[in-house]
């Protein structure tokens, strides 16, 4: 029989369910909002700061289990990963695109007021 290794244990899944819902905007990134350690993560931090929304960041470089588990949880292979209202929104390119089109601001306004 074939056994597949999964980094996402049931415990981690339920923890992540709680984490992504703990704040309206949650960003999993390389580094911290004050000290991003990758250009892509830095870009998303700059966008969120410029929109003046409160957001929580988690540094995936400090926790390899979290990093691997999140890739499965989000079904997304790279970081940063932005969550809005408990839902996966996208990575850096999607966030930049939505920022340029005004959709991100619209979504955040709705999310912050709900």
């Amino acid at each position, binding site marked *: 029989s074939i056994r597949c290794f999964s980094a996402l244990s049931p415990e981690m899944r339920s923890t992540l369910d709680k984490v992504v819902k703990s704040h309206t905007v949650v960003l999993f990134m390389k580094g911290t909002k004050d000290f991003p350690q990758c250009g*892509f993560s830095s870009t998303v931090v700059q966008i969120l700061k410029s929109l003046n929304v409160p957001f929580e960041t988690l540094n995936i470089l400090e926790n390899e289990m979290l990093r691997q588990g999140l890739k499965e949880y989000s079904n*997304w*292979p*790279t970081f940063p990963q932005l969550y809005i209202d408990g839902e996966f*929104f*996208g990575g*850096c*390119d*999607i966030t930049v695109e939505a920022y340029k089109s005004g959709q991100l601001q619209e979504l955040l306004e709705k999310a912050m007021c709900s």
Partner: protein
Amino acid sequence: MGVTKEDVESTLTSALKPSHLEVIDTSGGCGASFEIEIASEQFEGKRLLERHRLVNGALAEQMKHIHALSIKKAVTPSQWKPPQ
């Protein structure tokens, strides 16, 4: 274990049958960082997140060895506008 621009191109070509595809190696030659612009019928009716998921899914094997992948454009053939 390097991934080349040609690997990325041929994988995306067979998976997504793009009408337009541009893969730019942004690594300075080490083959681990790419920018992608792609137009495909398969993006029709899909949101940007779903389009990016299709690209990421097609490149699942290569992603293990790619350090950075930037999808600059993921559009349908009718949305594709060549740069002015």
